[in-house]
């Protein structure tokens, strides 16, 4: 019953999306103006309906309704409740339903709260949003119906891939999806503005919070995903340049560029066409990512859909949406007039440089991700990894970081670096640069084996961190607006994360050993001893748990418990690493198999300052959140002030 209800709700939502598209487009013409009042309520209703459909699917998973095909294939009655709920989106159909749900709710929010954009552009935006959603509704209803029933109910479900049975799954996909799909709103805004030819500061002001929101979620989603891979895969790495990771990085790079160019458009009315273009590119990257991940072209725990029909379907959607947007851009870009001018030394110029470098990195990542797919079409199988991505991306990233130190200090439009004010601005930057140089020389001198890239990374991070605090210099800290704090925190977060990455790559110590009970090893500054081995059992798994006592140079010993877990439904295994975090790094312990002679294979890493990677990522996300909060608060203050004025006027009888 609930499955049928869910399907019916989904059809109704799809019908409303079609209505939203038609009415929204008609409302742009003079004859259809009367219909304009309908668009907002339809968008809100569509959001509510699809949310209810998603709720129906969650209910089916929670009650483990074994007559529903999707539940049988991906769930099991003995699974803990949280994984029953998370299992709803741990499969192709469910994740696609979550995608349209977030997309429709995003559209509903725009319809509800967006008041500053001019009405025609908003109509075009909502119509654009409905157009994209409609493609995904068709995909869901015709090629991947999540509510399909089985002719005869199954005895028991087949369970969820053990790798996915992790608390990370409960949060990681929804977070990333909100990011991906949030960019669809930026995309729709860009389409709307192109249709009405109304690209300017008002448009940028309306679009910016959506870009910022999507970007915050993408940042946090990528950071959390990286940590999840780090501790569940047991490989000791935090980023593998896996196509699936790249699929989330590419929209992030485009969204970061968009975020900065929108700020130029809002404050200075420059970079009009470029901002619209980035809006199109950012969501296109989300779609390309979805295509790569979901089409079955790649093999990973993320590739649910191995059905080639689905891959073709997503590819067709991709071609229609991106191709259409690019065609519209080509037709209309010429009519978007040039924006305001700026000098070579100005904040705009620094942001343009940042944008172009980000696009360069995006190009590097995109080419490296697609290259294996292209060569495979010609029968040559290759894989592309860190030896390609790291240096090629660094060629663009490092110059960008250098400009980041000075960019936020420059004035809009035109600044001078000579003369007294220029010097006052420049000398702190020079101090930071000297610090970076000192760190570089120190690292190269003290540790000869360190590669160039990590050494450069350490140096740049040490210079960038203090430099990113400089915008606060000379300000009254209590009166500094929240968005400035946000920017400072986000830029400092980049430096912190870069330091963690460089330190991990430069100073990690790895030990691989076969240990008998009671045997010890040295791992960098750590002394580790295998004390015991114990079988334990969970609700749907059994495991071997090792007791490893570890002692950091003279400190009190800590006992760690790495596990090797075996799952029964479906059968599978997972190595759960054990981590011990200190202020200056992390010890990472993995339990392997028992060798023929009874010794246990164990793997240890000492990774100095590795947690800074995720702390930095979180700082970037929180920085974004502060900026967004600042904007929302000032908007609320503005509305309150407006209401007060209106109220006083009313009382005075004017």
């Amino acid at each position, binding site marked *: 019953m609930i499955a049928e209800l869910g399907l019916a709700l989904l059809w109704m939502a799809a019908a409303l999306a079609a209505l939203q598209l038609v009415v929204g487009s008609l409302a742009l013409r003079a004859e259809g103006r009367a219909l304009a009042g309908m668009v907002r309520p339809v968008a809100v209703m569509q959001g509510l309906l699809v949310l209810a459909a998603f709720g129906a699917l969650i209910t089916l998973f929670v009650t483990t309704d074994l007559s529903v095909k999707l539940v049988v294939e991906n769930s099991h009655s003995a699974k803990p409740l949280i994984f029953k709920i998370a299992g709803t989106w741990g499969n192709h159909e469910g994740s696609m339903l979550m995608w349209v749900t977030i997309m429709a709710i995003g559209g509903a929010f725009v319809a509800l709260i967006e008041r500053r954009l001019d009405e025609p552009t908003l109509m075009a935006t909502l119509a654009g949003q409905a157009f994209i959603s409609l493609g995904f509704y068709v995909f869901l209803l015709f090629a991947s119906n999540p509510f399909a029933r089985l002719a005869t109910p199954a005895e028991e479900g087949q369970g969820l891939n053990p790798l996915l049975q992790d608390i990370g799954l409960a949060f990681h996909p929804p977070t990333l999806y909100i990011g991906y799909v949030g960019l669809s709103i930026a995309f729709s805004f860009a389409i709307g503005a192109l249709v009405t030819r109304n690209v300017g500061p008002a448009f940028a002001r309306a679009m910016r919070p959506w870009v910022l929101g999507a970007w915050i979620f993408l940042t946090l989603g990528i950071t959390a995903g990286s940590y999840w891979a780090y501790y569940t895969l047991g490989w000791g790495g935090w980023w593998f340049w896996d196509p699936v990771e790249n699929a989330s990085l590419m929209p992030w790079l485009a969204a970061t560029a968009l975020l900065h160019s929108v700020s130029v458009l809002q404050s200075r009315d420059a970079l009009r066409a470029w901002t619209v273009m980035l809006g199109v590119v950012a969501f296109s990257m989300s779609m390309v990512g979805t295509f790569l991940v979901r089409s079955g072209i790649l093999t990973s725990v993320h590739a649910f859909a191995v059905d080639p029909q689905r891959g073709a379907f997503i590819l067709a959607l991709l071609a229609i949406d991106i191709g259409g947007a690019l065609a519209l851009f080509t037709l209309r870009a010429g009519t978007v007039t040039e924006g305001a001018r700026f000098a070579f030394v100005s904040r705009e110029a620094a942001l343009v440089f940042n944008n172009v470098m980000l*696009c*360069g990195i995006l190009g590097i990542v995109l080419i490296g991700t697609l290259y294996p797919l292209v060569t495979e079409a010609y029968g040559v199988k290759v894989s592309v990894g860190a030896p390609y991505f790291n240096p090629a991306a660094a060629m663009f990233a490092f110059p960008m970081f250098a400009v980041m130190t000075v960019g936020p200090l420059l004035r809009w439009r035109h600044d001078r670096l000579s003369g007294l004010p220029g010097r006052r601005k420049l000398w702190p930057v020079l101090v930071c640069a000297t610090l970076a140089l000192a760190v570089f020389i120190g690292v190269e001198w003290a540790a000869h084996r360190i590669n160039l890239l990590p050494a450069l990374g350490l140096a740049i991070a040490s210079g960038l961190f203090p430099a990113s605090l400089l915008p606060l210099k000379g300000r009254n800290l209590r009166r500094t607006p929240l968005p400035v704090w946000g920017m400072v925190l986000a830029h400092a977060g980049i430096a912190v994360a870069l330091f963690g990455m460089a330190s991990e790559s430069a100073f990690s110590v790895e030990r691989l050993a076969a240990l008998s009970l009671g045997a010890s090893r040295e791992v960098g500054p750590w002394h580790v001893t295998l004390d015991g081995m114990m079988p334990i059992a969970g609700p749907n798994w059994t495991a071997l748990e090792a007791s490893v006592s570890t002692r950091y140079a003279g400190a009190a010993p800590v006992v760690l418990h790495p596990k090797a877990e075996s799952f029964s439904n479906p059968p599978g295994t997972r190595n759960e690493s054990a981590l011990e975090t200190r202020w200056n790094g992390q010890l990472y312990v993995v339990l392997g198999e028992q060798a023929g002679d009874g*010794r246990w294979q164990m793997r240890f890493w000492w990774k100095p300052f590795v947690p800074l990677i995720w702390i930095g990522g979180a700082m970037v996300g929180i920085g974004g959140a502060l900026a967004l909060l600042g904007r929302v608060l000032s908007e609320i203050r503005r509305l309150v002030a407006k209401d007060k004025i209106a109220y006083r006027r009313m009382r005075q009888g004017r």
Partner: protein
Amino acid sequence: MTALLRPKHQRLVLVLFALAALIGAGLLAAFALSRQASFFYIPSDIAAHPPEPGRAVRLGGMVQKGSLKTMPDGVTIHFTVTDGKAWVPVRFTGITPDLFVEGSGVVAEGRMEGGTFVADNLLAKHDEKYVPREMKNMTENDAKQVVAQTK
């Protein structure tokens, strides 16, 4: 020199700068890929055209029955990968994937050193749903024969 360019010129300069950077990225990518992409080999390819020593490649095939030996340190293993036509000795130091057993399929990432393939990483066939894609064709075409031969 005036500090501000005329609008038309400014747009032109921006477009040229962006194009230069993107073309630069493309050229850099092409150059780096030609040197850094690691190619997929099966044992007969290695026998016919061995990759230059030290170049990162991937080797895929079946682990020959009876070839797996653990060294005295307990963590280094030697085994032979075969496609039924050629045989390549492999050395690997590390924890093997869970489903890595003799007779199963494997993809090894590493490089040739002398006549031995030194693997940094092993990818084993996980289960029916998550097969390394390079092995899919092979398991269909050759693997059954290979397993039959090496049994």
